[in-house]
């Protein structure tokens, strides 16, 4: 039986879809069978981030409406073995799917895959309850800023209420430089506030923009800092013990320089 993990954030724009695409790809690169489910009905994006937008024929809505078999709606990623995508319908809206229907899809998918990653829409309404309906674990993505963390705390409360656990945190767009000079909260600050387990930290990386432009998730070319971070997170998800490196930049020179040039 595979694991169903909902990837969520509360606030939009913190890198939820990027994280889902990269973690799904990374897990497949590690030899796992993975299906990534886009639960953002009406505002789908996973397909274009993954570079699979031209190959979508059926969506989860077609499966629910019995227009096609579930297996037929899965789009295979040809770049790696064992990775498929179930796209969201772009023509419908979030109320067109019931949590029970979503759960049925997830339950079916878990019988044939090691991992089912569900990309949740932002927000705390219907979209989230649909996305989390079939999940037994959650990954909360946040950036280290006040609004994202506040919303993350709100969504963590809802996940706990739905009795989904474990809940793991991914801190995205972490800037070692800004943390080093005191302009960004560090991981200890964020953990102190949110109080859930830390799964990993993804550093800010301009490579994310170019990889999204191309539709090639970063982890395919494991050269950038963010790609390394996503690979480490994927390994942790498979149960490997990989320590979380300290990304903070606090050299003596930077400290002295910051002391003179810092603008808080």
């Amino acid at each position, binding site marked *: 039986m595979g694991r169903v993990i909902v990837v969520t954030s509360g606030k939009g724009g913190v890198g939820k879809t990027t994280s889902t695409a990269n973690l799904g790809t990374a897990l497949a690169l590690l030899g796992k069978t993975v299906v990534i489910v886009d639960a953002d009905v009406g505002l789908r994006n996973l397909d274009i981030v993954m570079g699979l937008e031209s190959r979508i024929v059926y969506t989860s809505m077609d499966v629910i409406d019995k227009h096609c078999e579930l297996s037929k709606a899965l789009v295979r990623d040809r770049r790696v073995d064992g990775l498929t995508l179930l796209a969201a319908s772009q023509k419908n809206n979030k109320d067109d799917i019931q949590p029970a229907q979503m759960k049925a899809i997830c339950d079916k998918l878990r019988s044939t895959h090691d991992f089912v990653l569900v990309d949740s829409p932002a927000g705390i309404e219907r979209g989230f309850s649909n996305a989390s309906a079939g999940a037994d674990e959650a990954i909360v993505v946040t950036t280290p800023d006040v609004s994202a963390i*506040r919303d993350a*705390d*709100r969504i963590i409360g809802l996940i706990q209420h739905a009795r989904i656990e474990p809940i793991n945190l991914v801190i995205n767009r972490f800037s070692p430089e800004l943390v080093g000079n005191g302009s960004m909260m*560090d991981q200890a*600050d964020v953990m102190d506030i949110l*109080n859930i387990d830390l799964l990993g930290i993804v550093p800010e990386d301009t490579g994310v923009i170019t990889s999204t432009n191309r539709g090639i998730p970063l982890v395919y070319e494991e050269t950038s800092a963010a790609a390394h971070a996503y690979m480490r997170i994927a390994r942790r998800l498979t149960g490997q013990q990989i320590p979380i490196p300290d990304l903070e930049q606090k050299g003596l020179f930077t400290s002295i320089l910051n002391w003179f040039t810092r603008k*808080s």
Partner: protein
Amino acid sequence: MNISIRQLFGRKPKSSSIAKQRLKLVITQDRLDVDDRMMMRLQHELTEVLAKYFEFSMNSVQVSLKHEGNSCTLVADFPYKKAHDLSVNR
């Protein structure tokens, strides 16, 4: 250490620690679904009840929420001067 030396030289606190402080407060309120008005009302009513038993200076009364890890504590500070003599009424 770093912070105290900076403060000696009159530097502003880091914006990251301001962010953390503000977040802790607002999240404590979010979690409990408590707003300022409710806190004021609570303080008012607590004062009414306690005033029957104790004499205290109103300015020093403070009711607040303290956030530690996953739990929140309601902290009520009522520095009292003396207890009323209730034997008179009995």
